[in-house]
């Protein structure tokens, strides 16, 4: 290793080299988790607030012709003016099983007379099922109008000899969508009045998420229900967490007998049973079984859920009071209000955020549960919990009606949880607390 002597020449150091502070990049508040969960929360809020203005279907309007229907696009239906008894025109004898008209109000069939057959039996089955299906009529005439609960699917009609059981004719029929004049007037699609100029075709609105057991549009109901759920879920915790925090902070700051009395009161409130009080409030408010139960729900929540955050904040305030930087502030002559605002509050805020972020999903769940058992909102007001209650009845045949409101509850609970968690992490990392 060759070394020249000059490399050993002495060097003094410059003072700028020494006292430097390595820059620590300030952690961003907008981490992916924060961004994603706040987007979801904003989307939900827009969904329930702006949504009904865009999607203008009435959540309580029942479409009797589309009970428990699947997702459907807007489509045209024929307006049927008369659906009374029918006879085929005599002039035309037929050679096979002929369909004169097929729609969801009636299917009109005519077949040729066959020698030796006195009575005919008409069978109807879904086209994709094997077998004859249901025997819907026996007639000695050679025509029939089927008005038995027709839906929009392919049917297979079979004509058989009623006496011998011999199968004679069969045909597949797809009825087109139609609506009777009576129902159209009932739904308000056609003005009631004696006018002979009615349109032949009507536009029926689509239901992107389908309809429930009473024919109501699910999307509109989700929006309406969301309003209630989110209102209760956000406003109630906002109120009771704030109250609890203020109560706990005062107890922690005051200390002494004030603190003791306050905490015994907190113990007392914690011991009260929630459901019992809910029902008592309902009775006290004089609300009958069919009336809207939102107010007692919110009042009960407010009066019974605040102790949790009170205890939490009191503990944190007590811990902060003993911290050296609070003592240093006292020594510096800082006024009490400034100590609370500048020193205590910023160090307590993360905890409040966490409390809040856990209280919201809890409130949404509580409201859903209560509405589910009938102690919450009553129709026509709806909430996601009430929608779940409705959806339970058709769980086996149409699970979509339960899954959709449950999905919305889960997504909103998850989003609020993540948002609170992420916000707490971001504020903690700004203060240098390592993520546990």
């Amino acid at each position, binding site marked *: 290793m060759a070394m020249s002597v000059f490399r050993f020449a002495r060097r003094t150091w410059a003072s700028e080299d020494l006292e430097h502070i390595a820059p620590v990049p300030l952690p961003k508040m907008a981490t992916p988790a924060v961004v994603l969960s706040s987007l979801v929360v904003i989307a939900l809020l827009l969904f329930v607030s702006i949504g009904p203005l865009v999607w203008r279907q009435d959540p309580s309007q029942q479409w009797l012709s589309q009970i428990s229907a699947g997702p459907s696009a807007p489509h045209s239906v024929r307006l049927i003016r008369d659906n009374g008894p029918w006879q085929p025109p005599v002039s035309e004898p037929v050679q096979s099983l002929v369909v004169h008209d097929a729609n969801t109000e009636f299917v009109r069939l005519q077949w040729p007379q066959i020698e030796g057959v006195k009575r005919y039996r008409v069978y109807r089955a879904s086209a994709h099922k094997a077998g004859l299906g249901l025997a819907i009529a026996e007639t000695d005439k050679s025509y029939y109008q089927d008005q038995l609960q027709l839906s929009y699917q392919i049917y297979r009609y079979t004509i058989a000899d009623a006496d011998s059981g011999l199968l004679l004719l069969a045909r597949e029929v797809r009825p087109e969508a139609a609506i009777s004049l009576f129902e159209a007037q009932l739904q308000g699609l056609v003005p009631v009045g004696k006018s002979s100029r009615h349109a032949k075709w009507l536009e029926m609105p689509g239901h992107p998420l389908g309809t429930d057991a009473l024919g109501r549009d699910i999307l509109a109901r989700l929006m309406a229900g969301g309003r209630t759920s989110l209102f209760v879920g956000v406003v109630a915790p906002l109120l009771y967490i704030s109250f609890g925090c203020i109560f706990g902070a005062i107890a922690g700051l005051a200390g002494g007998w004030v603190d003791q009395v306050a905490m015994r009161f907190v113990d007392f409130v914690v011991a009260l049973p929630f459901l019992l009080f809910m029902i008592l409030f309902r009775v006290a408010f004089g609300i009958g079984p069919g009336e809207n139960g939102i107010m007692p729900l919110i009042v009960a929540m407010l009066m019974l859920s605040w102790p949790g955050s009170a205890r939490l904040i009191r503990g944190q305030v007590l811990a902060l009071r003993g911290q*050296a*930087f609070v003592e*240093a502030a006292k020594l*510096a*002559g800082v006024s009490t209000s400034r100590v609370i605002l500048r020193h205590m509050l910023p160090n307590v805020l993360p905890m409040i955020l966490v409390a809040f972020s856990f209280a919201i999903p809890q409130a949404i769940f509580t409201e859903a549960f209560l509405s589910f058992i009938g102690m919450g909102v009553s129709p026509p007001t709806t909430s996601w919990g009430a929608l779940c209650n409705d959806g339970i009845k058709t769980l086996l045949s149409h699970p979509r009606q339960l899954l959709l409101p449950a999905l919305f509850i889960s997504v909103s609970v998850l989003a609020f949880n993540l948002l609170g968690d992420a916000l707490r992490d971001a504020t903690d990392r700004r203060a*240098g*607390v390592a993520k546990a």
Partner: protein
Amino acid sequence: MSGAIVQLRELRCHFANSEGLLAAVDGVNLDIKAGEVLGLVGESGSGKSTLGRIIAGLQPRSAGDLIIGGQTMPRHYSRRQFKAMSTQVQMVFQDSYASLNPRMTILASLQEPLWSQGVAGTVARDKACYWLERVGLPQSAGERYPHELSGGQRQRIGIARAFIAEPKLVICDEPVSALDVSVQAQIINLLQELQTEHNTAMLFIAHDLAVVRFLATRTAVMYLGEIVELGPTPALFEGPRHPYTARLLAAHLDGNIKARKVIAGNTGKAAGHKAPLATDSGCRFAPRCPMAEPACGANPPWLRATKVDTEAACHRLADVEILKLRK
């Protein structure tokens, strides 16, 4: 100029615990003169930190008088008292991280004592920037948060914050115990510079004898809540009169490889820590004292003048003096 700015008369601080009344500070009489550095030495449990906090007003005393600047202070300070005292007494804490608000910038923490005095915004900011530089930190440190600085840098901020209010007395509660050796030296040098420059009185609480010897003009030694010896630092360290002070000095390890102090097997029985109760009578050191007599346990000793201008609280002071003469 050499008047006492802080006077303690029969100061006591008692805590109630399961065994009775614990006397953390028991009957302390002390004066702190303007411009002097008083070192307060003792081991854990001696009550030195409690005494410092009582003088600062952070700990209420149980009995006795605390007189600062001629005014007798009440037991519990109100906000107004703290505000008035903020230009008289300030404190540097041991844990530099806990003594700074983690959510406030350094510059804001520095300006806070000034804001509460009503100093205008720009003036306060300029002063804070000056002090930042005075303690050896770059201006960029002002915008940082405490967790971005090292322990030594944070302690400098603590010192700057104590001195920025221009107090008459700065209480340093073990300011260098948690720091590395090389950083300790920086902080100690800084404290010495600032103290001489501003002629601030300083109460330097520590358990490291060498640091106290270096900084303090006068030293007080505390044991279990009482002051057992008091006097000018050179005299006290060279000729300790109280047996406890002698033991402390003997146990201090100086890095002298030629004269080793620790002898194998030279330990007494370790019987555990006995907490000082207020009801104890007699000398607290008597159970461990090599010169203890039955009379020592009867009455509490008081500070008496010794032949080397210090004061020692020992019943057997006369005998100690004779032994010293013989050596």
